[in-house]
């Protein structure tokens, strides 16, 4: 598993290449990139910050859960922090598996769950102001235990 929080450009090609092994029939990659607008409002850049130690632990736990849940062979989850401009990758998730179905399913589950549970936040800088992005509500079991 490669689990990391970085401040430099995420190199999708080398992360994906390093993940592949002979037993794999598929590598499914999710590359989350900065879009140029939110609901039509023009975005200049996003500032990402994290509760870093907890975020890394959560990412590691999610990857381990995905390995067990979907039976995939290996996973990379890399999230970038700091200022990111339009078109740059904020997160890369790559899942290697013998078969594509499990790889797709694990990849989708990982990004959906990461977005709800990993303590990372972003502030969106628009042409005409800045706001902290509205996160999705926490799953009920997290908020009330």
């Amino acid at each position, binding site marked *: 598993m490669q689990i990391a929080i970085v401040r430099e450009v995420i190199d999708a090609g080398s992360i994906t290449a390093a993940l592949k092994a002979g037993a794999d029939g598929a590598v499914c990659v999710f590359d*989350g*990139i*900065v*879009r140029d607008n*939110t*609901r039509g409002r023009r*975005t200049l850049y*996003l500032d*990402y*910050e*994290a*509760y870093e*130690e*907890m*975020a890394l*632990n959560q990412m590691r736990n999610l990857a381990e859960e995905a390995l067990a849940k979907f039976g995939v062979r290996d996973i990379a989850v890399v*999230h970038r922090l700091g200022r990111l401009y339009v078109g740059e990758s*904020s*997160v890369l998730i790559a899942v290697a598996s013998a078969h594509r179905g499990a790889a797709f399913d694990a990849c989708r589950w990982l*990004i959906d769950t*990461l*977005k*709800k*549970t*990993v*303590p*990372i*936040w*972003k*502030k*969106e800088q628009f042409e005409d102001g800045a706001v*902290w*992005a*509205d*996160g*999705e*509500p*926490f799953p009920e079991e*997290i*908020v*009330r*235990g």
Partner: protein
Amino acid sequence: MQVRVLYFGVLKELFACPSEDIEVETGCSVGELRKVFHGRMPERAWKSMAIAVNQEYAGDEVLLHDGDEVALLPPVSGGGPGDAPNPREKISLLPPGTV
């Protein structure tokens, strides 16, 4: 006893500092600490935040100990730009033969 409270995202800006040491009564629970912050932030932020103790999500029943690191976490928004509502959820697959 004392706990260190960390603020993130919009809360760090609201309190204009990343963390504070706060004196609480021995045996204080996460839920009781949550109440301490009621009124110190917008109601919507208060209702939507999660709390982590020593880097693990903690429910209101969890008891705090001297020196604990307690983080107040606004809803998280990592991963990529804010998403439009997932269109897949609006698709209903009609059984064959249905018009």
